[in-house]
């Protein structure tokens, strides 16, 4: 147990050296590390949100509102299909049922076959799955002989729709968040219909929430001047019109045409600037070619009429068309501050979210609390380590000092491994490390107590050391493997901060067995060779 071949010696020292090398960058700032030569390890520990501040936002696609949106457009498609047939197919009671289906009834049961022919394309085939090769439709429908028609979602079709909504949303969110200029946000899919946005080091989580969560569906509507909004509030809006409110306080009602002239999809670019005359922040936008042509046509035909720019069902501006706008660009001015103008420009450039997203879990930590936690963690672990080291030296003298050297090597290995893996250090993670320190000592205690026993049993120095190490090994392995099993399961079943804890615990267990057993044994062997003692100072 106490003889080390040269290659083993080299290997042990090399392992610790590598550990020290990889943990060094953590003691310098990011800028300093960046200026080092490239062969030096440059990876630093990633600090968790709880330590450096930032936001953790878990979004879920609002299925209800997405289904409603899809069914509404299906209603429109059915209406068009039946009206456009020659002669018209009469129907009644067309509407959404329970937010899962669209139902209607034909007036004339003789037209069932015609209706089936007209409606069969509305099942909306989606891309066939590459693997199964079967065709998936978004909708399925039934037509009974008495003229009752029911369209409903297919399960796979809806699932596929939601999946692509998540993909598109991730793209849109990425475009938006990238322009906020925070440090490397991470945006990823979670499960079927969830998106996790993590932005470490962000100082203004509210702004991020506003930027990520907003649907940002912009539409341009002509204002209906033939009827007044007040009238519409008292009774109901005329057919083809809808009532929307402005963002002012109190909100001003507008009566606009339901079908938008143009939407945010027709935009090419948008920029926040200042108005040249009033010097107020405004947002300039430019349509793409098709949009510009359409905008020119509409403005030519409606000079003198107001139109409304609607963002997520709220009127942000309702200018009057003074002259035809042929260049395809325009300006939105609506009580912006510099930041709101900037944010709106970003939202318009990045495009609208395909569905509404709701926050189902939010954890934001301000930079102040993060800094406090780091310093508290540093102080606590420093004091803890010093206390444990002092206790070990007081209890085991020279062997205690050796175990402190091993403890130092252990810390270097833990930090080196965590840095190398790019693991995230969280507050529970620091607790895991401190606990490892306590447990690391356990392995040494097991060995040293065993040596004491062997000395008491009358063995010579060398044979007591040898027996102490070899007999303690089984115990150390059994004890640490049981804890490792708990850590691994914790990692697989835990989430967020608990995972950080599990990672540090697991790494700590592995490095502990190495440093407390192998490295301490190595140190003892070195001491033994140099001093050749007849009695052990233990």
């Amino acid at each position, binding site marked *: 147990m106490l003889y080390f071949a040269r290659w083993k010696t080299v290997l042990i020292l090399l392992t610790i050296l590598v550990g020290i090398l990889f943990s060094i960058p953590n003691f310098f700032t990011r800028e300093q590390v960046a200026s080092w030569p490239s062969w030096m390890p440059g990876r630093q520990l990633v600090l968790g949100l709880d330590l450096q501040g930032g936001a953790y936002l878990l979004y*879920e696609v609002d299925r209800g509102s997405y289904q409603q949106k899809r069914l509404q457009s299906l209603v429109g498609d059915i209406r068009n299909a039946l009206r456009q047939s020659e002669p018209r197919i009469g129907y009644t009671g067309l509407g959404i049922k329970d937010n899962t289906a669209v139902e209607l009834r034909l007036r004339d049961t003789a037209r069932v076959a015609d209706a089936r022919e007209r409606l069969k394309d509305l099942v909306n085939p989606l891309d066939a799955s590459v693997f199964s090769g079967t065709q998936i439709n978004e909708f399925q429908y039934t037509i009974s002989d008495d003229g009752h028609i029911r369209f409903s979602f297919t399960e796979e079709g809806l699932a596929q729709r939601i999946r692509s909504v998540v993909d598109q949303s991730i793209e849109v969110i990425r475009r938006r968040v990238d322009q906020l200029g925070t440090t490397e946000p991470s945006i990823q899919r979670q499960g079927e219909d969830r998106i996790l946005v993590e932005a470490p080091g962000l100082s203004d*989580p509210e702004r991020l929430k506003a930027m990520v969560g907003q649907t940002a569906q912009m539409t341009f509507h002509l204002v209906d001047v033939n009827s007044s909004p007040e009238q519409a509030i008292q009774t109901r809006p005329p057919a083809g019109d809808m009532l929307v409110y402005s963002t002012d306080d109190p909100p001003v009602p507008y009566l606009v045409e339901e079908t938008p002239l143009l939407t945010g999809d027709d935009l090419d670019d948008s920029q926040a600037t200042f108005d040249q005359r009033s010097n107020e922040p405004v947002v300039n936008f430019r349509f793409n070619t098709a949009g510009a042509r359409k905008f020119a046509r509409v403005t030519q035909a409606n000079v003198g009429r107001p139109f409304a720019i609607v963002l997520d069902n709220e009127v942000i501006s309702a200018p009057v068309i003074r002259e035809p706008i042929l260049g395809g660009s325009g300006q939105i001015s609506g009580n912006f501050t510099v930041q709101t103008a900037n944010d709106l420009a970003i939202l318009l450039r990045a495009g609208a979210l395909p569905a509404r997203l*709701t*926050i*189902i*879990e*939010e*954890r934001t930590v*301000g930079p102040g*609390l993060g800094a*406090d*936690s780091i310093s*508290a*963690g540093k102080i*606590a*672990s420093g*004091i*803890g*380590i010093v*206390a*444990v080291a002092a*206790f*070990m030296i*007081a*209890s085991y*003298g020279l062997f205690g000092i050796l175990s402190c050297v091993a403890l130092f090597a252990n810390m270097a290995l833990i930090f080196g491994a965590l840095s190398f893996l790019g693991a995230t250090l969280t*507050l*529970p993670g620091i*607790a895991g490390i*401190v*606990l490892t*320190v*306590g*447990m690391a*000592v*356990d392995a040494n*205690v*097991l060995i040293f*107590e065993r040596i004491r026993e062997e000395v*008491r049993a009358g063995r010579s120095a060398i044979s007591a050391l040898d027996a102490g190490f070899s007999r303690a090994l089984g*115990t150390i392995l*059994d*004890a*640490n*493997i*049981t*804890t490792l*099993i*708990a850590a691994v*399961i*914790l990692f697989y*079943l*835990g*989430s*967020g*901060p*608990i995972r950080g*804890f599990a990672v540090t*615990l697991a790494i700590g267990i592995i490095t502990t067995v190495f440093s407390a057993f192998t490295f301490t044994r190595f140190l003892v062997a070195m001491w033994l060779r140099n001093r050749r003692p007849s009695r052990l*100072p233990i």
Partner: protein
Amino acid sequence: MRLLRLVPENTNFGFMKNRYISFTLSGTLIIVSIVLFLSMGLNYGIDFKGGTVIEMETKDGPANIGDIRSELSQLQLGDVQVQEFGAPNDVLIRIERQQGGESAQQRAIALVRDTFGDTVNFRRVEVVGPRVSGELAQAGTLAVLASLFAVLVYIWFRFEWQFAVGAVAATVHDVIITIGMFSVLRLDFTLSSIAAILTIVGYSLNDTVVIYDRIREDLRKFKKKPLLELLDGSINQTLSRTTMTSFSTLLALGSLYVFGGEVIRSFTFAMIWGIGVGTYSSIFVAAPILNFLNLRNDTGKSGDGSAEKEQATPA
């Protein structure tokens, strides 16, 4: 140099003769814990119950908890708790889960932000919606059960079945009593508490396995020794190690408890408690249970052969 000893050499405490006292004590604690858990339940934090936690810091001077409470009560957010958190100008607000789905939680935070505005810094905001909280509770319970089961299998594999049963019984004992502690002290039961309980599971097993290891060794060495005497011997031999390790782990945890900040205080408190319970259960539950499970009859047969040659060291 005189070295520090927590326990003297060659102790010979009669742990086993008190086994009925310790069993009564453990049994009572377990029953009390279960009764507490069923009657009072746990003080579930937002991770499992849903809701909002806001930590804020007043900018000028110490916070007036009474004023904050009365301002919040005007917002009609249901059950709202306000408490000082670590420093006089640091306040923790807990708001119960709002009715009306996921977006209702966001409206509640917006109201609080508007109410206090620029007079405070929001140091931390955590919102867990109803859906997520259910999933977290499920995953947490599953984690504890799965790890217990895995460990049971491992010890079964490495030792006799009595050891596996004894280790798991001792660990379950620790988990139940820890849950009882959470219940009676009304500590926040969160995801970190689950992590703390799992750490306790790990530590308690570690401690138990070390003693079991020695018992297994002694069983091979002293074939004729009465089991109770042998168990006492094994515990006494490892007593120095048991106390040393517990003490050094407590030193590390104690420093974390005192200096580690408010956020992880309840986490470290649970672990300190667990170290105490875990150490107790290894000695007073895990070891004597082997006697009840008729350990000798089984291992006497399997442990012969090479064991005879082993050099005996006096206890």
